[in-house]
């Protein structure tokens, strides 16, 4: 309904014509156009063909019910209602179109007033329009009907002026958007006058949305006009439109219902023809009507073939989680052979395994699309349909997370796994106070009363070094700075003293100073609670500052796993090397372009048969292209998945890469 003037550039005529013709090729557009054509055809032909039959008075046959001679019966004068309904099409449609024309014209004048009259007079007009828009058109029409008098012309003017405010506002919005564009500014500079500017440069470019809205408005006008005539304020006898026929028929609805139902149906049908055609125009000309549903729809279609409806993780093989090894008491998280897949066939996480001990912090790095965030969400059991999660083992603080979701598991996860998300601007609910959002966790999972939970929330805010925590707790998220919000987010994550904190790019959205504060805070909070930290980042240097150990992910797999202290000395995967080389330092030669990882990240829907990094790897050979290297341990606490791991340190190509 709302119009979109993004295509505001002057378009060549034939291109516009083909855009309009495209409406007819959509099923909705074709159906609406056919219906509309029928209505318009009736409006033109019906009075010519049937006026005599419709107006023929036969007092002997008055007030008859439907019969073969009179399909819908007769009125008091014995006139045939069926033909009257057909003939009334012209007057009804005519009046609706005329009212819409008056409304659009008046609206255009009022809406363009700020442009033509200048700022001050324009503001007065705008204020009046804003006031009028608040009133429903029918009410405005009643008001104007008083002034213009009862009857066809009065009602026509009333309906027209009642439609005007909507179009005035639409015009103003469209004009305001266009007025800022370059070609208008250029025309203005060239000394084009205001009126000429409007008629030659602005109007042609807002025509499309105006026509779309006018089509819908014509439908509304048709329905409203029927209302006015029905009330006796519109068309007066002996003329008749559908509204008047309905008023005449309604009195006898018990004895001759057809005489009331037929004109009502005609109004609805004709009104829908205009409305539907307007909607079809809007849809096909690219006016966005249902943005939220569109994305969901595309996904839904793909999902249909998928039988599995569970969003929860599945066990890869049916083995007993507690059978082989009992968790030792330092273990916090155990992930074995974790897979995430989507019904479209892509598998963004492919067999990831790692473990986290108490007090330990592990960083997961990789480019966007490497599967690191999905891994974190899958571990936290936050992935929903249509994502599918499978694993051989997934254990948090001794509890099997592959078990079916239950209330107990919810409470367990609510207190044992704390999440810190990337963007603190959007991760807090904008309409709830910060303190309440924190307190919610304690109230929900730890059975605390409101007051007690609030005290815990304030305490946590103090622990994350938020000044005046009592006051801040009563504020809304938008009243806190970005860094402060992220600290509050960390406070929320540790409300339940979790064994595991998962931080997904927690500093990416922050400025450099807030970043440093948040990192330091995250470390100290983790140390205080002796929690394990799973830290997701695309920035290998940040991971180096925070974590004990780094997992490098590429195309859904862990390709290297080593202590952060050994990153510079012992990294053996070419991808890790490339990531390190891409980090600029103070010593970087700024006259040379910044180093990047060459090539494009792998597409999870189309992975190569062998090593996924091979297409971008300077060391790749035929074996890399055909065989995916397994993640193998070197016996000194490091793992790497590369056929050429031993060559990396010595390779001159990579050495240059790193120094550059």
């Amino acid at each position, binding site marked *: 309904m709302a119009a979109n003037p993004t295509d505001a550039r002057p378009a060549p005529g034939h291109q516009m014509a083909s855009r309009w013709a495209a409406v007819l090729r959509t099923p909705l557009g074709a159906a609406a156009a056919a219906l509309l054509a029928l209505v318009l055809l009736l409006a033109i032909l019906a009075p010519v063909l049937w006026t005599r039959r419709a107006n023929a008075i036969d007092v002997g046959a008055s007030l008859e019910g439907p019969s073969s001679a009179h399909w819908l019966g007769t009125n008091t004068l014995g006139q045939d209602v069926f033909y009257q309904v057909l003939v009334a099409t012209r007057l009804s449609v005519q009046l609706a179109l005329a009212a819409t024309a008056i409304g659009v014209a008046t609206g255009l004048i009022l809406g363009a007033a700020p442009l033509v009259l200048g700022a001050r007079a324009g503001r007065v007009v705008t204020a009046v329009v804003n006031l009028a828009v608040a009133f429903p058109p029918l009410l405005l029409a*009643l008001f104007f009907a008083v*002034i213009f*008098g009862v009857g066809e012309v009065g009602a026509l003017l009333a309906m027209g002026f009642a439609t005007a405010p909507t179009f005035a506002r639409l015009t103003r919005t469209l004009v305001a958007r266009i007025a800022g564009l370059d070609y208008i500014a250029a025309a203005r500079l060239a000394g084009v006058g205001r009126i000429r500017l409007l008629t030659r440069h602005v109007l042609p470019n807002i025509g499309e949305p105006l026509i779309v809205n006018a089509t819908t408005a014509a439908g509304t006008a048709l329905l409203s006009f029927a209302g006015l005539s029905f009330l006796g304020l519109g068309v007066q006898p002996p003329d008749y439109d559908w509204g008047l026929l309905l008023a005449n028929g309604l009195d006898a609805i018990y004895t001759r219902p057809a005489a*009331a*139902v037929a004109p009502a149906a005609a109004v609805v049908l004709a009104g829908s023809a205009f409305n539907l055609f307007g909607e079809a125009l809007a849809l096909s000309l690219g006016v966005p009507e249902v943005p939220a549903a569109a994305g969901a*729809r595309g996904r839904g279609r793909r999902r249909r073939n998928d039988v599995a409806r569970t969003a929860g993780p599945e066990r890869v093989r049916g083995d007993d989680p507690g059978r082989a090894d009992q968790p030792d008491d330092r273990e916090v998280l155990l992930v074995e052979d974790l897979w995430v897949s989507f019904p479209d066939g892509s598998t963004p996480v492919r067999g990831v395994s790692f473990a986290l001990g108490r007090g330990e912090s592990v960083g997961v790095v990789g480019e966007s699309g490497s599967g690191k965030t999905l891994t974190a969400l899958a571990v936290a059991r936050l992935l929903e349909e249509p994502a599918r999660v499978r694993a051989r083992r997934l254990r948090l603080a001794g509890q099997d997370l592959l078990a079916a979701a239950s209330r107990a598991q919810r409470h367990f996860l609510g207190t044992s796994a704390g999440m810190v998300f990337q963007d603190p601007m959007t991760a*807090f*609910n904008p309409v709830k106070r910060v303190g309440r959002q924190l307190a919610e966790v304690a109230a929900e999972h730890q059975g605390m009363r409101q007051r007690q939970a609030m005290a815990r929330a304030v305490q946590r805010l103090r622990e994350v070094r938020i000044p005046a925590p009592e006051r801040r707790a009563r504020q809304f998220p938008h009243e806190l700075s970005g860094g402060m919000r992220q600290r509050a987010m960390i406070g929320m994550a540790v409300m339940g003293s979790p064994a595991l904190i998962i931080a997904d790019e927690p500093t990416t959205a922050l400025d450099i100073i807030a970043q440093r504060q948040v990192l330091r805070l995250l470390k100290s909070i983790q140390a205080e609670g002796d929690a394990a930290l799973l830290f997701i980042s695309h920035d290998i240097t940040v991971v180096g500052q925070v974590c004990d150990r780094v997992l490098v992910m590429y195309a859904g797999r862990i390709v290297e796993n080593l202590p952060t202290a050994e990153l510079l000395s012992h990294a053996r995967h070419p991808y890790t090397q490339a990531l390190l080389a891409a980090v600029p330092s103070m010593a970087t030669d700024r006259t040379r372009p910044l180093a990047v990882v060459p090539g494009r990240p792998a597409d999870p829907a189309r992975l190569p048969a062998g090593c996924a990094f091979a297409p971008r790897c300077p060391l790749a050979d035929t074996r890399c292209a055909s065989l995916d290297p397994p993640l193998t341990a070197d016996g000194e606490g490091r793992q790497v998945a590369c056929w050429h791991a031993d060559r990396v340190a010595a390779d001159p190509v990579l050495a240059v890469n790193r120094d550059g």
Partner: protein
Amino acid sequence: MTGSVTSLVSGPLTAGARRLAALTDSPWLRFAARRLGQLLVSTLALVTASFLMIHLVPGDPVRAALGTTAPQSLVNARRAPLGLDDPLWLQYAHYLRDLLSGQLGTSITSGLPVSQVIGARLPATLELAGCAFAVAVVLSVTLGLAMAVVTRGGRHRGAELTFTSASVVLAAIPGFLLGVGLVYVFSVHLGWTPLAEKSGFRSFVLPVVSLAIGPAAVMARVLRLEMLAALQTDYVRTARAKRLPGWRIHLVHALPNALTATVTLCGLLLSGLVAGSVLVENVFAWPGLGAVAVQSILDKDYPVVQGIVLLYGAGVLLVNLVVDVTLALLDPRSTIRES
């Protein structure tokens, strides 16, 4: 440093003054001041419009009302209380004065006070519109919410399609035409409910449904879309990460955010409902203001029309005020927004 200077200068200032300064700084107070100013301007514009209406009518309104056959003496007698011979500004002043003392004038046709004419009919209209609004809100929130949860992420395509097309069709039919259809099906065909006029609970069903269905369909559709959008947001993911139960995520976290657009729309539809009731009342011979409004327009009984215009207009302004305050309560950020 600036802080210490200010505190030195403002040393003698009392705590009360400082509190006042803090209060004027509050977004809520500024919101209230702005909104009340807006209301004042709108009300003045409405009153002026209803005053001018009678003067915009071509010719002598009293002569027009009483018809050409009425004796001049009667016309003069009815003209006198209207003060139509005074200068325009004085008439306006009198009009404002009378309004402030609660006087709406006298009906030209019946000679009764307008407030009495309106007062006799207003309750029936309020009952009808109130019921219809309540039904529309309950129906649309329940349905929109349920449909959003059921169809989120592309689940249940069939249900989504049925819901969307049904709501589009129902929303496109104006209440009075729907009323005719309902009367035909339920009263004429099935004989379930009395045809017309107000008599007990059963007589409410059809008028209320005719008025409520359209707005309910529009609101349910919008609410579903808003809910779907809200369910995709980061803060809903945060709520899920906090392992809140489903009802809490949907009702406490997503719904208030989804409601803002719906409440705005709700206001529009409620004012539309006020206007729509005029038509629906005429379909069902409802003893409300609608019939009086139409009759007084036909009779050119301008004082009554003026009173009704004022009343309907005030209703719309009140609805808009309630909407804005509700929005401010739902989303405190909207108090900051400068209009």
